[in-house]
Structure formats: C-alpha cells, structure tokens
C-alpha cells in the first residue's frame, strides 16, 4: 500500500510541539517509511508561533517543506494557530485542534470568531485538550492528547505511535510515560467521538 502524508503541526513556543513531531516521525520511521520533518529553533521559540512541516511516504520524498494546498492534516495545539495555515490544506484535508486558546498577545481575536471559522471547515475536530490532559494526570500532556486526536488521520498504527511515545520519552519516569499514553488514548477516543 502506498502511504503519503503531508502534515502541518502548529502551536506556540513551550506547548511541546517538537516532542509531538518527534513521536510522529519516530513512528513513521519505525514503520519503514521515508520521513522528512522541518522544525523551528532559536528565537522563534520564545512564546511565539511554532510550526513544523512533516512528510512521510512509502516512496522517496525530497522536500521537507509541505507545498501549499497539499497538507492532509493541520494538527494544532491552539485554535487560532490552526487557522494560520489554511492555505497549506488540500481541498479535503482535515483540521484537528485543541479548542482552548493560549492568549499571550494583547489583540487575541474573539473566540467566537475562531470557533465559527473552524466550524465552517468541512473536515474539522476541536478537542478540549486541557480538560483531557488534566484527566490523564498532567496539564503538560495536552500535546499527547492532540497526538491521539490527530491519530485517526495519520495512517500510522496506534501501536507504533504509542511505541514512539515510549521511545521519545525514554529516560523519563514510568509514571510520566503512563500519563502520556493515557493522554494519547483519551485524545484518540474524544476525536473519534467528535467524528
């Protein structure tokens, strides 16, 4: 089976976007796919916009950057950030986002405006990742909730994604890994329920 996925991963500095990207990349690698992932380091990480382009395929791929209009999924840790990358989305692509805003700027737009823009998209799921992360046992696991929420669109087996969590968090205490696995599971279930 030919697999080809182009993803835009979005968030704000400090939300754990790069860990989320690393887990998807690791899972795709473990499934024997070609993987390319571009990420942002340095100045931009200080509370600013953080995004990562991720591509994996059973055929060789060349550009780490996703071409406009070709992303299968925008997976976002923040609702306003999900809207920033719409021109990257292919016509029937999906947007999966955390519904809880991260407000660190004075002119953050009205939440209703964001909600209605998201609702207008054909294929979208909005998940309260903060609530589910608390249920899993740690607010910091919101990124793993969103990994779970995005999982139905990744064409990767949930097993390899969970293995990816273990690999990327290896060295952390077992309890932290279990919390992250639970967060992943809660996100996955919430996403399927929202379908």
């Amino acid at each position, binding site marked *: 089976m030919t697999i080809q996925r182009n993803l835009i991963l979005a968030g*704000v*500095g400090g939300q754990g976007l790069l860990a989320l990207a*690393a887990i998807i*990349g*690791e899972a795709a*690698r473990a499934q024997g796919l*070609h*993987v*390319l*992932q*571009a*990420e*942002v*380091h*340095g*100045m*931009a*990480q*200080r*509370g*600013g*916009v953080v995004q990562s382009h991720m591509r994996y395929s059973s055929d*060789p*791929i*060349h*550009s*780490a*950057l*996703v*071409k*406009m*209009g070709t992303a299968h999924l925008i997976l976002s840790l923040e609702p*306003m*950030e999900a*809207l*920033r990358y*719409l*021109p990257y*989305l*292919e*016509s029937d692509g999906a947007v999966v986002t955390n519904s809880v805003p991260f407000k*660190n*700027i*004075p*002119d*953050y*737009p009205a939440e209703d*405006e*964001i909600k209605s*823009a998201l609702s207008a998209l054909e294929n979208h799921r909005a998940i309260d990742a903060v609530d589910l992360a608390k249920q899993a046992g740690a607010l910091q696991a919101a990124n793993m909730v969103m990994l779970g929420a995005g999982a139905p669109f990744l064409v990767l087996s949930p097993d390899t994604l969970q293995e990816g969590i273990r690999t990327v968090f290896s060295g952390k205490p077992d309890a932290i890994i279990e919390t992250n696995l639970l967060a992943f599971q809660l996100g996955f279930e919430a996403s399927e329920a929202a379908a």
Partner: protein
Amino acid sequence: MPTRLLLGNEALAQGAIDAGLSGAYAYPGTPSTEITATVLKSPDVAEGRIRCAWTANEKTALEAGLGMSYGGKRAMVSMKHVGLNVAADPFINSAISGAHGGLIINVADDPSMHSSQNEQDSRVYLDLAMMPCLEPADQQEAYHAPGIAFALSEKHRIPVMIRLTTRLCHSRATVMTGDSVEQNSFSTPDDERRFILLPALARRSYAKLLERQPEFIAESEASPFTTYFEGDDQSLGIMACGTAYHYVREIVGEACAHPILKIGQYPLPESLIERMMSECNRILVFEDGYPYLEGKLRGLPLRDTPRIHGRLTGHLPRTGELTPGAVAGAFGIDTPDTLAASSIPAPRPPALCPGCPHADTCNAINAVVKDGNPTGRVFSDIGCYTLAAMPPYETVDTCVEMGSSITMAKGASQAGLTPAVSLIGDSTFTHSGMTGLLDCVNENADVTVVIVDNLTIAMTGGQTSSANNRLAEICAGLGVEREHIRIIEPTPNKHEENVAVLRREIEHHGPSVVIAVRECIQTARRSRAKGGSS
C-alpha cells in the same frame, strides 16, 4: 545498518565523530548550535576521547581548531553565518597557512532570517579564502560530509568549509550511519614555516594556494556530492546547489527530461558547468541564499545564449529561502488554489518569557532613561533582551551585531547624546563586549553599560556562558572604577532600589557598569526538573 531520525546538524556531528574527530569548538548560534551540542552529548566527550567546548566567540573557536589541526588531529569548528564575520580573519588566513590534521569549518546560513539579522551567503567568503567547500544536499550527505572533508583537508593540507542552511540544519530525516575510524595520533607539520605568515613567507604560501585551485576544481567535478544527470531535452538545463537539488527533484520527479547538474562542492565544477552552458539554450539556477552561482554564470556583459534564469531575473524570489512552491513557480507550475488565508490569526511574535529577569531590568532602565527623558537611548545587542524592542517594554533602540551596544553607545555619547546606555548579555559581553569596554575606560567615555547576566547563553537553549560569576572582576580588570561597578538583582520587589542604582550610575560622568544578575527562568526550571538546585 539501522536508520536513525536525525536533524541535519545531528547527522553532521555524528559523521564527524565517526570520522575520527578529536576536537570540536564553537560559539552557539542558530541554526548551527545542535552540531556542537550533539558532540557534547557523546560518550567520547564524557570519557575524554574528544575535546569539545563552547568558546568565547567564533574567532577563538576557529583558532583553537587550527591549533588542534597543527597538532595533527582532526578538528571541527561550527558557527552561524554572521559568526563567520567574527572569525573571518583566521578563516581567510588559515587558507594561506594551511592545515595539518583535517580541519573543517561548518557555517550555517539562515536565508529568510528566521533567527538572524541578515541572510548573507557564506559561499561569498570562498572567493576570499579560496578553500574547498562541501554543501550537503540532505541529512545523509551531512553525515558523510565530515569524512570527505577531513580527507580532502589532509590531502591538500587546507581547511575545508561545510556550508549548511537552516532547512538542512533543522530538518529531520532517516539517516544510515556507518563505521567509525580511529583518531589521528599527535604530530606536528613537517613544513612548519608555512604557519608563519610574515610577508615574504605568506607570498610563497599564497602563490601555492593559487596554484592548487585547478586541483580543487577537479576535486569538485569528481565529488560524490556533484552529479550531472543526463537529459534529452536540452531546451533547458537545471543547476541546483545543495538542498535546492531536492526542491527541484520534488517538482520535476525522478525522471526529468532536462539535464540536471547537482552541485555539492566548491570551487564550482567548471567543466560540468561549461558542458551544460554549451548544450542548453536556457539555464535555471536554484540555490538557497544569494544568487552566487547565477551571478557568476551571467557574467558581464549579460549573455544571450544560454539565457540564465533564477533569482536575479525574477524567476525565483530575490530574497528568502527556497520553497517547493517557489521552485514550482520557476518551472511555470502554478500552485492550485485551495483555502484562502484566514484573516483571523493575529501575529504572535516571540516575546520575553513570563518572569524573565530581563523584563525587570528593562522596566528599571525605562524608569530612568525613557520615562520623561526623551534624549536618552539604549544601545542594545544580540540576545533574548533584544525582544525588549517590542511593546510593552520598547527599551531597546538599536541592535546591529555582537558587541555593538557598548561601542555604539560610546560613539553616540561622544557625538552629544546623553544619557547613552548600553544593554548587553553576559555571553555577548564576553564574546565581543570586553574590548569595547576597554575603549570606554581609555577614553573615559560617558557610558553606562548594563550587563544582563542570566548565567547562561539563553537564546540558543542554555549553553554555558564564558564568564559566569566573574563579570565584575573582568570589568574591574579592564579599568572600570570599583565604586562604579554595581550588582543588582532584577526582581519586581527591588524595582525602586534598582532604579536608584541605575540613576546614580547614569548620572556619573565616565564609564560605569551595572550587572543585573538573576538566572534565566528557562534554565532554572530545567535544573529544578532534573532535581538540581534552583
């Protein structure tokens, strides 16, 4: 061999370790930092087999690398593109003295200025130094580059540059790693006098460097990173340097009708370029950074055949990094319209972290220099604190290059500006600020230097700063009067106290230094998480 998912920077570092690296030196700078950070994490460093350190600046790093090479060992030096400006003196002169053990100089360019003040293309420096250079096209080539570069360096006894760009440095890909080779044993050069660049000796070495250029060009033509892909349709020829090759492949596919020249080594492979120029009617040039190759191909006067198209002719944007969309556009392929950009998202620029000590220092400076004192200016520098140029602080009036805060403040004060305040970080001060402070002392300049000491190199992720807890001693050693070296703790509680100290020192005629000491909240948080002291 198993594959690993590695950043370009990590692949390069692993490649160097596997190729017998003995010493790595660097000053951190985005997008180059992870090269040396990766070496530092290797067990070879912990167990003392590889020497690896963050140095005071890029110049001291390169000189240490040249010294290790003098001792016969394989050395690697890494910097961002503007770091090469700082290290330009040893860069250009080490091409004349030559190397002994393999010496590679990694320079990471930042087209689009993701985290930099310009997008200069380091290949332009090759015209000055005339040393060979590799430009890996992907992470796998980044892994192989150090081995090839060390061999080239030792064969021709010359340093070799490796040119990287942000997208390669900070993109991950599956990389196959290989076997490792032994380090070189210690030895000194058998022709030691070439390291004495007295004019009479330097002229001879320079003549030799010029004589070897044809050999370097032949190396580039035979390089594993350079390939001429045949194509039947010669109406168009494609030249692509480094990572640009993969953007081209993404668009034209594996079976392209047109010939493609993939260039991965410099000096430019002349005979391959000549071949394409003679066979094709039109050439499209793809390179990330400046139109370096394109400019050389165009020549003067501009030629009609073949026509040369690229960044200079509007077929590609003149500035910024390449994107698959831009490359497609150069082939006349439009990107299909899908969803329009949303007007809802507001800009979310990087900002000082909540609780950052720089915020408290800037609030105190504002109270003295900005509030009701419109003639004052704050000359600032490169670091997190530069973000205080933005609201709500708007403390910073200038940011040009490493160390310029102190010397610009001095010059401006001598032009009549008062008060002239300099705002500089601890590691920027040791990188390039100390000499400027000595100038201030020697001229009794009316400048107040505020050193924001957060005990780390914060912006690049918390590397060790050169002069932790020794800044006051350094300033005193440079000749600043002891009573005008003041240490404050930047916290909201001490605001009034800190304002009073700043006001007194700014009113003082002559150089004064206020050191605001409080640990970066990011590194403090990380050391708490590790169970260390807070």
